[in-house]
């Protein structure tokens, strides 16, 4: 008995220390000194400090004295940009990216198979990426509900899921959803019909429930238990969510005509398309995309890998930019995700964009099509402290990311990282 008390005390101390080592106190306060800060509202601020408190950008000013002892990093003139956002990816998933057993599966949730230990998450962090829109694949005309995650390596899926983002449903047109099952759909006509049919069924389902509810009201209370309601259908309710403005559509397309066809359906049934994905022929329909306020989430110049990607020109980005279409760059893979800053740099040569507009294509524009523009995507007081520090010009091929910060916490630090040899 005498020895047990000190033993328990020692054990308690050891366990607490171990716990603290594995779960350090949340470091959501940070001071970055003497950086070149890329803001969209005040331009490029040279020799400025950036103060982060409770995970939010608190102050951008020259020579900030921190209110209390917080982690301070002297950037010595290095560039700070908003954390890079990839608005179209499939990383962090534990299994298949496609539920291709059926053609319409909007009821499934990509967040159900989030794998927070996926190495590709770490690969992306090393390129300054702080948030991704992890999507269902393009095997189905109507796929599943996508999930937006902040790349908080080491945290649980619940901590990574970004609940403030718009709910979004994946749709796909063209060669990927058709001709792969040996059955319907074999043509683009079939793909269009399958999508329209889902909306017709959803509208019919709603009508049946409306009729049932009315009948219930007209039935005396004592007899209501005798009424049999229509069967609950999670699939069609997900479709109805897109009509009720609770979920936006993000649609994979390549050719201009299939894109225009979905826009037609969106007007007919009242669903909102936030952006088209890949859409290699966007340069042919810049006017229509602008008129319907639909953005694009694209590769900068990967093309010709299949027939529908063979009519394309990166110089067409100039037409889209001139018309004011929201352009977001994506990678679809973690290798490209970690060099999105290089892809954005190319916007300057293809579209004649200046540095800040080019930077928006991997930050603010992406946040806009994901419904996160109020919370992240730019360096502004009050927004999440999602930041990336680069050792050179942030859009140059010859630069690399040194530090990746999400809501004030450092998730990638090249100087200390054991998985990068060149510091």
């Amino acid at each position: 008995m005498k020895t047990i008390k000190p033993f328990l005390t020692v054990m308690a101390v050891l366990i607490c220390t171990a716990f603290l080592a594995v779960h350090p106190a949340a470091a959501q306060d940070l001071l970055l000194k003497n950086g070149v800060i890329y803001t969209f509202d005040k331009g490029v601020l040279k020799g400025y400090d950036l103060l982060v408190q409770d995970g939010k950008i608190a102050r951008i000013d020259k020579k900030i004295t921190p209110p209390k002892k917080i982690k301070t990093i002297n950037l010595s003139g290095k560039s700070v940009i908003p954390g890079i956002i990839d608005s179209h990816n499939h990383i962090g998933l534990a299994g298949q990216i496609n539920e291709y057993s059926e053609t319409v599966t909007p009821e499934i949730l990509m967040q159900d198979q989030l794998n927070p230990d996926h190495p590709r998450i770490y690969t992306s962090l090393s390129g300054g990426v702080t948030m991704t829109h992890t999507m269902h694949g393009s095997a189905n005309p109507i796929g599943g509900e996508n999930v937006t995650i902040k790349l908080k390596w080491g945290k649980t899926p619940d901590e990574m899921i970004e609940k403030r983002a718009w709910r979004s449903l994946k749709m796909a047109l063209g060669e990927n959803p058709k001709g792969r099952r040996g059955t319907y759909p074999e043509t683009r006509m079939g793909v269009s019909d399958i999508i329209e049919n889902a909306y017709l069924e959803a509208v019919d389902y709603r009508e049946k429930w409306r009729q049932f509810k009315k009948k219930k009201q007209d039935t005396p209370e004592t007899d209501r238990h005798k009424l049999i309601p229509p069967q609950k259908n999670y699939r069609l309710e997900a479709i109805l969510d897109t009509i009720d403005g609770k979920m936006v559509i993000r649609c994979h397309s390549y050719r201009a005509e299939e894109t225009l066809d979905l826009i037609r359906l969106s007007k007919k049934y009242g669903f909102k398309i936030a952006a088209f994905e890949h859409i290699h022929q966007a340069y042919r329909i810049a006017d229509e995309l602008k008129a319907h306020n639909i953005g694009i989430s694209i590769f900068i110049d990967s093309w010709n890998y299949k027939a529908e990607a063979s009519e394309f020109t990166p110089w067409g980005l100039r037409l889209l930019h001139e018309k004011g279409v929201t352009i977001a760059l994506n990678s679809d893979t973690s290798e490209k995700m970690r060099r999105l800053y290089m892809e954005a740099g190319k916007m300057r040569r293809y579209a004649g964009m200046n540095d800040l507009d080019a930077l928006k294509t991997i930050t603010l524009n992406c946040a806009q099509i994901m419904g996160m523009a109020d919370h992240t995507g730019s360096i502004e007081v009050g927004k999440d402290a999602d930041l990336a520090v680069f050792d050179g010009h942030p859009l140059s091929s010859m630069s690399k990311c040194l530090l990746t910060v999400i809501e004030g916490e450092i998730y990638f630090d090249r100087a200390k990282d054991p998985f990068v040899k060149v510091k």
Partner: protein
Amino acid sequence: MISPRRHEEHEVKEKKMKKLIILIIVLAAMCVSVSAQDQADQPIAIKAKKIVTVSGKSIDNGVILVKGGKIEAVGASIAIPEGAILHEYKDAIVYPGLINAFTTLGNTGISAIRQWNDAWEVGLFKPNLSAFTAFYPWSNLIPISREFGTLTALTVPGMGLIPGKAVLFDLHGWSPEDMFIRKEAALVMAVPEPPDPPLRTNKRYKKRLERVKKQKKDLWAFVDKAHKYYQRAKKGGNNPFNPKYEAMKDLWEHQLPAIINASSAGNIRWAIKLAKTFKFKAILADVYEGEEVLAEIKNSGFPVILGSMYSRNRKWDDGLDKVFRLPAQLAAKGIPFAFSSSWGSAAFDLPLNAGRTVAYGLSQEEAVKGLTLYPAKILGLTGYGSIEPGKIANLVIADGNILETSTVVKDVFIKGKKVTGKSFFRREYHKAEAKISGE
């Protein structure tokens, strides 16, 4: 009615007029043909803000004189001869034409369409196949690569252990013969890599491992037999005809280099041993684990052709920057290397592959050399790779640093002639801008 006498006079006048007209036509024709002759030899002068010679110091506000397709002179204060056509680029930088050392340009089109792939034949040992026989000069991918500065490339066959022979060409011309520099510029080989071990060793993994081991043995045996075939042919006497061994003779008869793809450290060592044992010239390609065998590569004297710099590390422990930190290590050891951008559709992004490695320790000068002088030397292109008197006038006029993401190539010259043909990318832009249906 004209009187007979008047008619005679009229006839004489007509004959004289005819003679005069013929004389005028002949003289005009002579003038035209003389100026066409002159045009081919007509000197061209290119003036630019900066000339990156690669072989020496860069020249500010320099001039390049071109005649007969070759560089005649380059310097800061060169007198521009009378009659020379002057191209002035006030804000541009001139580079030697970039060289893509390993690609499928001209042999492949849309990746997913099998009918458009003429680089991947069936079979393991195919030294008798040549990429030049299936080279498609009208591929829309060729002007696109050219538009971003690649003016020369090596197109290689793929698949198997000895896919075949590669073709070296300039990216301008109408028929294949217009473009070829060398129809059979190298033999391509590939050392098979063992599959990644699974979490638990299973039967399938063991089978694949066995197959790879056997293929390596077979590759060694094949080269051995081909070498013996060549030796018997030299001696004369009984040597039954074998088309594959016949195709291998170039390795020894004409010192045709063999580009050997090897990724792991073990395979790189094996490739060096193969080339040294059977005494043929080798170029090592891919060399993913080159970092571990830098000394061996240096001692072998063999140069390196790098794979795409847009690649991931294959093992977690290799580190995230495994692929793009290698060029700096090769440069530090003095091992010549060339960049490549393999698949035809992605080939145009070659300069940025090189640019990326500058972030990981390679100097900008070495990066540019890896796109110009080094591939020229590695592929035996003595007239290419730098802006010096006597070299072929393959020139890229860029509005900035060729390694940078914002740079646009304004003009290219191939063999001294300014290329005016527009790429598919440019034509599509103009069509969409003006909303033209058709061309």
